[in-house]
């Protein structure tokens, strides 16, 4: 599946998307990346260039939600078009080829672009029995290592490849690990989310294609421009939080009035993502706007961070039963110590035998 031959302009024309629309996309992408608008033509030039880097997309232990998010098979957007047009040389769900031909195409693309292709990974890699996830008879671990060797950069699409995601959650039966635990010698950018916002993905790729570098990353390898703010600081329901107006259940008056969902377990204050600003489905809505608290899906270990419905101010493991048991143990210990002390006190207070003898004498 070598698509590099077809120029982007032809693809746009085939889909009925004018170059004017394409320029609009490049302008707004520059805005998204917090770049000067003067760079928009440069982005356009880079995306249209026939010498675009090859992209190989590897899917491991994943649900395909990340692909669905970016590609939105139901309603292809200009983002999906751009994405496809960057010469996607291997994608198991999208490609027409199958079987050995598909693998051969991948290996050819890797060989032809050695050192220069972008590797996109979704899904975690199992380190337990390799049989948990194999493609074409090769374990995910081996495939990843081979593909990473010749890659210029790796983009971990989704929380599974970035942080382990749902397979990594307790008890992690497959021994799943994030990509960054296996590949340590290549630049990796994490684009977490379950799934991530499509515009974030395309912007990161657009940035790389235009400038040959990855955008500035935070301590978890996420692009700061999208993951630098937490949901709470950008949430439209924040004034309700400040005024102390909370929904207590999902169907009470507060919930209907759109009050803050903190008490219903919203993890907005500790989650960094662009959902509150960019939203989902082309800006339609995001979980909080739909009435459900943020799950924290772009953070590591969000599956194991305590219940989705427990507010952040509650302890996750402290419970009445444990405390009662501890209380019983304490009382038991106290009673035992008290009894022992009483016995000791009685001994100390008892008249001494030698003194008695002296009295007699």
């Amino acid at each position: 599946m070598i698509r590099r031959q077809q120029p982007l302009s032809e693809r746009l024309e085939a889909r009925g998307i004018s170059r004017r629309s394409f320029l609009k996309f490049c302008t707004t992408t520059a805005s998204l990346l917090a770049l000067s608008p003067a760079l928009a033509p440069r982005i356009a030039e880079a995306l249209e260039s026939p010498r675009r880097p090859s992209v190989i997309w590897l899917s491991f232990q994943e649900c395909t939600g990340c692909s669905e998010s970016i590609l939105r098979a139901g309603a292809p957007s200009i983002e999906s078009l751009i994405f496809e047009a960057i010469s996607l040389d291997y994608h198991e769900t999208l490609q027409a080829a199958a079987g050995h031909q598909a693998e051969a195409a991948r290996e050819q693309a890797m060989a032809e672009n050695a050192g220069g292709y972008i590797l996109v990974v979704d899904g975690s890699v199992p380190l337990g029995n390799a049989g948990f996830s194999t493609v074409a008879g090769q374990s995910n671990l081996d495939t990843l290592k081979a593909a990473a060797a010749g890659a210029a950069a790796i983009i971990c699409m989704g929380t599974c490849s970035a942080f382990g995601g749902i397979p990594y959650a307790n008890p992690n039966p497959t021994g799943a690990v994030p990509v960054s635990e296996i590949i340590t010698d290549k630049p990796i950018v994490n684009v977490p989310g379950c799934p991530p916002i499509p515009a974030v993905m395309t912007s990161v790729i657009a940035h790389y294609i235009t400038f040959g570098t990855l955008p500035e990353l935070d301590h978890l390898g996420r692009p700061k421009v999208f993951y630098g703010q937490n949901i709470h600081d950008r949430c439209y329901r924040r004034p309700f939080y400040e005024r102390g107006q909370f929904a207590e259940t999902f169907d009470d008056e507060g919930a209907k009035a759109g009050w803050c969902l903190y008490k219903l377990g919203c993890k907005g204050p500790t989650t960094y993502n662009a959902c509150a600003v960019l939203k989902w489905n082309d800006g339609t809505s995001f979980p909080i706007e739909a009435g459900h608290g943020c799950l924290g899906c772009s953070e590591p270990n969000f599956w194991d961070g305590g219940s989705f419905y427990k507010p952040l101010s509650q302890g996750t493991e402290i419970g009445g039963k444990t405390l009662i048991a501890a209380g019983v143990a304490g009382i038991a210990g106290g009673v035992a110590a008290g009894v022992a002390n009483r016995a000791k006190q009685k001994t100390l207070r008892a008249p001494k035998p030698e003194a008695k003898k002296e009295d007699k004498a």
Partner: protein
Amino acid sequence: MSRPDLNAVLRQRARGTGNMVLVLHEVAHALEALAARGEARVIDLSSLPMTAPELDRLTDWLGRGEVIAQIEAEGRSEAMETAYPGVWLVTHRDRDDMLRGRYIEITPLPEILRSQPADIAAAGRRMARALTHFSDLEEAS
């Protein structure tokens, strides 16, 4: 229980950042450069922190000129020349009407209004095809 009007509340509490006058000075300098040397410039309004009332005051101050153009390109966009010719307000929205970008363009004509060479070439090919069908219809009737 009615939804409280958050925007009203927020507007009431809005205090300016003071960036409005800075942006206007930038526009003034850019306009001078355009007039003198033909240098075009684009200012991304989302790159500067400004409250919503401030943004409204800014656009009101620039005023409306002779041209308002509506563009349908993967969503609605609008290019409006302000009361200062050469200074345009360009707004981009996507297909779901969500605001994607707001710019002040200091230029004789914003790029979004210009017909693009690639589109022109494609249009040429398309018209040629359509005309062959047209002649067929003419002959049939």
